[in-house]
Structure formats: C-alpha cells, structure tokens
C-alpha cells in the first residue's frame, strides 16, 4: 500500500470531494468537505486493506484571511501498513461546525473538546462538548488569531523596531 494507491481508492470512492492532495515530507495530505468527513474517516478505518485503525490527533488551525477560516486537521495512523495520513476540512470561521468523530473513536472525545475549547469548533453529536483546559467562563476561544498573546498596548516589542 503506497500513498498513490491510497489516494486512488479514495478518489474512486469519493470522487471530486477529495481535493488538494499533496505530500509534505512524505505524509499524504488531502482536503475534503465536512458533510462527508465521517464517511471518509469510517472508510479509512474500516476498509480491510487500508486499516487506519488509530486516531493520532485532532486539532484545528485558524486562517483569518481565508473564506473558510478554520481547518480541522485529523491525523490517522495505520499500524498495519505503517502509514500516516493527514486530512483537512476547511469550515466557516464564524460558525465553525463539523460532525463529531466520537462515533468512530472514543479517543476523539477529549481531542474535540480541546479543539472546541481553543477554536470554538462545534462538533455535532459530541456527547459532552465542554471546555477542557480553560475555565468555563472564559468567553473567548483563545487560539484564534485575533487574540494577541500579550497586552497590545505594549510598545517595546513592536516588530518595526527590528526592521520587519
């Protein structure tokens, strides 16, 4: 099983909904849409040849300048074929919603809670979508790019002083 075979069987199954295929540092990466993400994950998990049985990680990335501003990123691992794969789903940055993967892996539970906590991504069908690391009444989703790390009124650390 190589990356090429894998992407072929995926396009056979899901057609043009598999986009943006590339291989940064040998790790197969593609994009898909949020309405078929659970089907894609289930196919990858349950297909007898592919067998991505292990959910390594779920996280998100914020791209404020893009139309679909939040990318939810899944890392799967096939211990049988010694392969990893990365799946990205770009969703609306203002109302981020995506189906939950907890139906497939229990491991997704806290990963999705963490993603909700920091990016505000609502995972539909998640059994217990609460904040996990931040306090309940924080009110913002701190990993979004509009929230600065430090007090924005500080004047001694501006990039312009360093020629940038």
């Amino acid at each position, binding site marked *: 099983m190589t990356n090429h075979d894998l992407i072929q069987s995926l396009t056979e199954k899901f057609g043009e909904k598999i986009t943006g295929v590339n291989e*940064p*540092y040998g*790790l197969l*990466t593609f994009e898909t849409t949020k309405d078929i993400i659970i089907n894609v994950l289930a196919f990858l998990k349950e297909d007898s040849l592919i067998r991505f*049985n*292990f*959910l*390594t*990680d779920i*996280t998100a*990335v*914020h791209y404020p300048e893009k139309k679909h501003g939040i990318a939810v*990123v899944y*890392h799967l691992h096939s*211990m049988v074929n*010694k392969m*990893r794969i*990365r799946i990205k789903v770009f969703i609306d940055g203002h109302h981020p919603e995506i189906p939950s993967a907890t139906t497939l*892996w*229990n*491991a997704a*539970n*806290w*990963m999705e809670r*963490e993603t909700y906590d*920091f990016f505000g991504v609502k995972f539909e069908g998640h059994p*217990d979508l*609460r*904040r*996990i*690391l*931040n*306090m*309940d*009444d924080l009110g913002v989703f*701190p*990993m979004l790019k509009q929230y600065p*790390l*430090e007090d924005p009124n500080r004047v001694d650390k501006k990039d312009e002083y*360093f020629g*940038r």
Partner: protein
Amino acid sequence: MNQPIYTDNDPQNELVTLNLGPTHPATHGVFQNVIQLDGERIVSGVSTIGYIHRAFEKIAEHRPFYQITPLTDRLNYCSSPINNMGWHMTVEKLLNIKMPKRVDYLRVIIMELARISDHIICNTIIAQDTGATTTFLYLFQFREHIYEIYEEICGARLTTNIGRIGGFERDFNEIAFAKINKFLKEFPVALREFESLLNRNRIFIDRTAKVAAVSAEQALDYGWTGPLLRSAGVDYDVRVSDPYASYEDFDFEVPVGTSGDIYDRYLVRNEEMWQSLRLIEQGMEKLKHEPKGIFHADVPEFYLPAKEEVYNNMEALIYHFKIVMGEIDTPKSEIYHSVEGGNGELGFYLINDGGRTPYRLHFRRPSFINYQMFAPMSKGMLLSDAIINMSSMNIIAGELDA
C-alpha cells in the same frame, strides 16, 4: 453552567461525592477527579483538568524555533530530554538537516536515560501506592544519578533545555561519560533488587494483577500509546515503526504485555528499563567508532554558534544575529514528527509559513490522550484500585495540560 452530571439513580441519597484532587497526594499532580462512591466502589467519575494550563501552543506562535525548546521541557518534566530532542528533530526534519551519526548516538543515550528516569518514577510510585515505601526511596537515588548526568551535559536537572537545533550545545565531557559508565554498572544491580522485591511479591500481585485490565481494542479505541498500549498487547513503538535518531542501528526488543492490567504495565515498564540500558550500552560502544568531538551538524545558518566564535568571527556573528532575530530561511510547509516519549507517542504538528515563528504548533501529548479513559474505566472499581490505576498510567500534569 455546563456542569457535569454526577448523580446516577440514587433515591435514598446514599452515594458520597468525593473530590480527589486537585492537590491530593494520591493524584501525584494537579488534577481533579470528582467521583461518586457507593461504599468503597466508584459509581461514576468526572475528570477535571487544566489546573496548570500555560497556553504553550499560543506562546509557541510568538517565539522563534530555538525559544520553543524550553516550552517542551515543561510538558513531561520527568523526561524533558525526550521532549527537547523531539522538538529539535521536528525542526531538523523541516529544514532537511542530516545529522552526523555521533550526534544521533549521543541523543539516543540521553533519551534512554530520560526514559529510565521516567519509568523509575512511575514504577516506584505504583509500589508506593500499594504500600511498599522501600522501593520508592531505594530506586529514586538513581533518578538523582541521571539528573547528575544531565547536569554535567547541560547544567540543568529537571527542565533541561538540552541540545540545540542541529546538535548539542557542547560535547559530553569526560565526567559525563564516567558518570554514565558508573550508572550502567550500578543501576542493573539496583533494578534487579527492585524486581526481586516486587515481581513475585504476593501482596503486590494481589493489588495489581487483573486490576483495571484493558483489552487491545479498547486501548486503540481510546488512543493509548506507549507502555500502556504495549501492556495491552499491541507492539507499537515509534522507535521501531518510524525510527528517528538512528534507532534502526540499535538492537533492542519491544516488551509486550497480554492483559493490560496494572501488573502488566509495571512489567512492561521494567523490561523497557532493561532495554534502555542495552541501548545506552550499545550507544557507548558505537561512540568509540565515531570520530571524536563532533557534537553538531555542519549547518551554520541554523545552528547557534559558540559565544567565543560570535565575538571573534564575522560569519559566526552574522549567523548568530540571524538565528537570534529569527531571520533564517525556512521552508513553507507543514510537518508531523513524533517520538516515543516516556508515556507514549509525543507528536509535534508544526505549520511553518516561513516567518519568524511557527504559524501553528500543536503538541500531541500522550498523557492527555491516555488519561481520558480514566474516568470511564474507574466505574465499578474500588477506590484504592483506582488510585493505583492512576499512578500506573503515569499521568504527568505538565503534559496533560500543556
């Protein structure tokens, strides 16, 4: 708001709610479990974490690469060198830096020492929680010896910040090698004694065997990695499946358990310490065949030069300035790199936009993912069993909360 529901069916109001933590001695870290007890049996539980959340991922988005190493120290602070090396290797993979073999072997030695110190903590604490204080105090002195080795190499003990991107900040000195050799001679004796006190100990076996058993399917479903997953019978080890730092040159075995209970986890960790000793011995042997004095790759544009060079050499001054001010050219790409940490697969997902700092850095922290099974699996367990279950999962609060 959004309060968890603790109450099950309790018409006669007989259940007791117990706050285990945030700073209970039995939790060995700052995290809380609100559990409901029927006598001594746990009916339900809710884990609350985040007490030492320090927003590392947000901080990392504002720091150049070399300043992120100290953040990784504070993830699993019982084996910080593994985290440091994992981060360095992530960046080196991004920058396509080829490391000299000698550096790889030095890294293996220091990472395996860190693994031993991590496993010492976990296994002695399991014993401590079952009532065997002797082993805890006895084996813990070797953790001190490991810290002395770190001290000789980098000057720090707990949060080591060891190495640089592209190698080490300095070569191991003779005292460090002497201390490693001394450790290799003395530790096996103590570890054998430790095993003879516990492995066939009736009380220890009664407390741990068949307690909190986990099947391989469950373990994979909950995303377990590391010694916990291996104790359930899955032979997954990042060192073997995705070798880094020349682990493929070494000869070692991956111990695997069968039932995933606490006794198996203890045995797996013990055997891993023996394997780590083998790895260190092989590393020391391999170093003899490598040219002396090489402790970093020849990549002046990424490797922070020595201070003396900076003061006396124009090129070094330029590179020093560029690295410190974050002006180095880095490829716009994304990368996932993982290492076998003390508790499992420690992953770094780095998105680089070519700027001064990472665009996004996510840590896949094994403790965080392993721990989510604790509350569901505690249901129906005795409170005293749940406590040793927690210590056998080796949950490190720094890694849990990032």
